[in-house]
């Protein structure tokens, strides 16, 4: 059993409850124990930094300070939300790089009776824990119900591989690590060119035209590639593509129907958990039909299915030889 400090983030008790529930369902088989930071506060999303950059970092620093104080025999702090992950990692990194910032943050923390030593907490995304620490082999070993036949888009979103301030990734735009994880569940993984493209973030709120354009781009590419559903590691991405898809469709007069599930839900399904226990059915764009095609029954009222666009097949290269891509590393 590996234990980690855990920063769930606000959305896991709200719009991303399914993420929390499905994560809880797979912890035991994966041998992971998550110890929630006591009395953590919101990371500020992109909003606190907008009004007060130092305040935004101080807000995050409180969580780092709480994590450092709590300790629990580990210094690794896991965040399941990509935005929380980046905020936590960035504050720590900048405080390490710039001692002046570190001193300012500790000055602020002092007002709340806290202190944080930059670098004392290692912030990692939940996905990294699963692929690096648990490992794909261990995950594959727990698969009871392979997702064979399910065409899944590995949609990683922006903030797992970027800004990568600690240089842990070789590929900031087309990493294959999420593909490998989904493949280990038996799914058919779509080679998705937009795997780290932006979902629009808070643009659905402040500039809907921009937000809908970005959502459409993703959903359109996924549909063209004949995907059954998208998999995500981020509550923000899930929210935008799931909850705003209908409004996007109205905006463009389109009829896309592209479900998006948390990767933990797919892992749970592959491990054999019942869909209800994984929060499946709480998505707005229903995954019922897609899952039904591979024999997973989701007990929920069906929604009208939009006709999926025909899959586009890559042209087979002929003529001049192609450069080889070589043995690429996953990340």
């Amino acid at each position, binding site marked *: 059993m590996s234990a980690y400090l855990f920063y769930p983030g606000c959305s896991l008790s709200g719009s991303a409850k399914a993420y929390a529930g499905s994560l809880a369902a797979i912890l035991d088989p994966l041998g992971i124990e998550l110890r929630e930071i006591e009395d953590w506060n919101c990371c500020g999303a992109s909003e606190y930094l*907008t009004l007060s950059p130092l305040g935004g970092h101080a807000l995050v620093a409180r969580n780092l300070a709480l994590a450092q104080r709590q300790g629990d025999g580990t210094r690794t702090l896991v965040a399941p939300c990509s935005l929380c992950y980046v905020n936590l990692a960035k504050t720590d990194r900048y405080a390490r790089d710039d001692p002046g910032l570190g001193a300012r943050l500790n000055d602020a923390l002092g007002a709340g009776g806290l202190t944080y030593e930059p670098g004392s907490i290692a912030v990692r995304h939940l996905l990294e824990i699963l692929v690096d620490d648990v490992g794909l082999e261990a995950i594959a070993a727990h698969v009871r119900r392979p997702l064979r036949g399910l065409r899944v888009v590995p949609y990683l979103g922006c903030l797992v591989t970027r800004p990568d301030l600690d240089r842990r990734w070789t590929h900031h735009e087309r990493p294959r690590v999420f593909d490998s994880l989904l493949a280990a569940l038996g799914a058919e993984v779509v080679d998705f060119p937009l795997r780290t493209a932006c979902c629009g973030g808070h643009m659905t709120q402040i500039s809907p035209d921009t937000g809908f354009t970005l959502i459409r781009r993703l959903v359109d590419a996924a549909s063209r590639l004949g995907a059954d559903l998208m998999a995500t590691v981020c509550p923000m991405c899930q929210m935008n593509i799931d909850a705003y898809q209908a409004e996007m469709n109205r905006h463009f007069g389109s009829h896309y129907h592209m479900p998006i599930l948390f990767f933990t839900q797919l892992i749970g399904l592959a491990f054999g958990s019942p869909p209800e226990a994984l929060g499946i059915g709480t998505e707005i764009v229903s995954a019922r039909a897609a899952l039904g095609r591979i024999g997973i029954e989701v007990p929920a009222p069906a929604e009208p299915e939009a006709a999926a666009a025909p899959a586009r097949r890559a042209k087979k290269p002929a003529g001049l030889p192609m450069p080889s891509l070589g043995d690429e590393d996953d990340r």
Partner: protein
Amino acid sequence: MTSGDRTEHRPDAFLAEVRAATPAASRIETCIQCGTCGGSCPSAADMDHTPRAIFAMVRAGLRDEVLASDTPWMCVACYLCAVRCPQEIHIPDVMYAIKSIASRSGRVPDAVAVDFSRLFVGNIRRYGRSYEVGLAARYYLRHHPLRLPGIAPMGIGMVTKGRLGFIPHRIEGLDGLRAILARAAAIEAADRAAVPA
């Protein structure tokens, strides 16, 4: 006096202000104006200036024009520009800095974006956590009342599927958090004051 006049007398004043508002390094002065940021940006099409142009304007001291620009408000902080930038400029952080200067000086080009941030931050200061229902309700009523009919089914769906909680969570150490944020604000104000005006 136009900002242009002021500029040529104090060419680096606004650059210094932006740098002071950017925690850690901004590297903005190393920009080679290649446009990788503007070419990469998913929302560049909806910006009045590209990020590169904003950096040139900062260097030129065009404070009024920069603060009036919607560019930083259209930044989604996806960091695509940041990993591609050949000069490793911390572009999203500079955008945050400009937004904070603009919101403080009351020159926001579009009240919607800053108000969303203010509502969000207000919830944090009130509860220590974000409060999705409260945020959405206040925000849509104030800025997008016409979107409400369209968005209502989604909202209802979210509620019936148990994805929106109506009771905000208040953290226990709220007083401590507020003290930290107040102290941070004071330090930030002192930093600002230290920049030669």
